[in-house]
């Protein structure tokens, strides 16, 4: 579904990604793991179009989208749940969620249905629907960001730090949710998370990033059993 070839990217003079090759199959969950600062966020930002790559190619469903702008990519169904949440602090939870559907051309009805659906899976948000998101607790804000992403009716969902700051129960719920999305709605997911165990448990495929390069890739279960990985990322 998504493929990057020899991608080089970074911020101005600071190159972060080096010849980055990655491939995601339609309908799968892929995990991207790596220590802090290796370039995971940078990769996601390049894929969604917030950053322009220096060189290389990005293809989506076999179309070259390297030179497409962010809006076109969102319209194609690539949706990102960004690091740091990036909510609209002065607007209410509900307004934030509605903004999630900004790029969709669906009828108002469809969107309202989705809103109810999102509320049903994250009831805490329904309780707080009229609260400005700037005053939510850290975890509530994270839920709101995820819900906003879901409102974009994603085909490919890029999630940056799913579990950051969330209570374990909530993480469990969200993991269940992602699995459902993937299996029932066919949403393809690229997941970045520091909780490597959880990430690899739900993913089919995993990529390990070191210093802006793909260092290892393969079946998620296998990676989970790989002693090197266990030592470096699972603290076992």
């Amino acid at each position, binding site marked *: 579904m998504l493929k990057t070839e020899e991608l080089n990217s970074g911020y101005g003079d600071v190159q972060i990604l080096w010849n980055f090759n990655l491939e995601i199959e339609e309908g799968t969950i892929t995990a991207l793991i790596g220590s802090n600062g290796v370039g995971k966020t940078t990769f996601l930002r390049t894929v*969604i179009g917030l950053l322009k790559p220096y060189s290389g190619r990005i293809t989506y469903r076999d179309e070259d989208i390297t030179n497409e702008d962010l809006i076109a990519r969102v319209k194609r169904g690539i949706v990102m749940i960004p690091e740091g949440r990036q909510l*609209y602090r002065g*607007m209410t939870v509900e307004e934030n969620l509605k903004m*999630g559907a*900004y790029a969709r051309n669906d009828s108002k009805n469809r969107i309202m249905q989705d809103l109810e659906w999102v509320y049903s899976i994250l009831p805490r948000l329904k309780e707080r629907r009229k609260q400005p998101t*700037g*005053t939510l607790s850290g975890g509530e804000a994270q839920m709101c960001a995820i819900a906003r992403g879901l409102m974009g009716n994603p085909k490919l969902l890029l999630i940056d730090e799913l579990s950051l700051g969330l209570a374990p129960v909530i993480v469990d719920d969200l993991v269940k949710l992602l699995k459902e999305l993937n299996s029932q709605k066919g949403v393809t997911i690229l997941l970045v998370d520091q909780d490597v165990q959880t990430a690899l448990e739900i993913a089919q495929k995993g990529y390990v990033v070191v210093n802006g390069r793909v260092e290892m890739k393969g079946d998620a279960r296998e990676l989970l059993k790989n002693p090197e990985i266990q030592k470096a990322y699972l603290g076992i």
Partner: protein
Amino acid sequence: MLPQAIINGILLGAVYGTIGIGFSLVWGVMNIINLAHGSFIMIGAYLSYTIYTVYGIDPFLSIPIVMVLLFLIGYAIQRYLMNLVVRGSVFITLTFTFGLQILIANICLLIWKADYRSINLSYSGASIPIGGVVIPVVRLGIFAVAILLTFLFYIFMKRTKIGLAINATAQNYEGARVVGVDVKNIYSITMGVSAALAGVSGSLIAPIMSINPFIGGPLIGKAFVICVLGGLGSTVGALAGGLVLALVETIGTSFIPSSFQNLLGFVVLVLVLIFMPRGLFGKRLYNE
């Protein structure tokens, strides 16, 4: 005397409100104190004046034309100039709009000269006596238009997709991009809408005040006060701010010498800031 002063205040307040709304919008969304806003109002007044003198079209009827023209001006200025610096600090954008203001004033000076102008309608000066008070017809019309447009603008911001997007962009630039908002365009639209509203204010003041290329400065002073009184980022607030300022001015000066009129406005401003730092209707988290 007091009832008349209140009526005068309310009628004037709606106009003040329109002055504040566009100013507050740009401030809230882009965190820009647009010192050129007064110049937009002035251009609006001149356009209205020119359309009236050349084509004889009543300023109330030409409001849509003026709005469209000013929307285009505002849009273009944002798109091709302001977007280049809008991510700079407050000082930078502020000084930038100051430069713009001087430039616009001087261009207008070249086109329209320094003469005072105003629109003299056949029905200007007419008034309806009710009980012990009189209601000037022109001001009543202006009041009605101002309220109507404020209402439409409110609906626009709350109910339309573009309105929501403007708001969202205001509060999280990157967050807006991520959901697919074309922020360049949204910023330009915001400035365009703000300028269009300024155009409305201009059209509305042309029949009741005298215009020349230097009225921009004093109008900005008013816009500041209105905006802070009402609270940033709130349409209702801007209207309320306008009404409060106008009422303070008209009622206040009914009892104390008129030379305190300007003083009153600023004293109220400072008091409101001290006791209600977000104004009467200001929202939390708006540009904090």
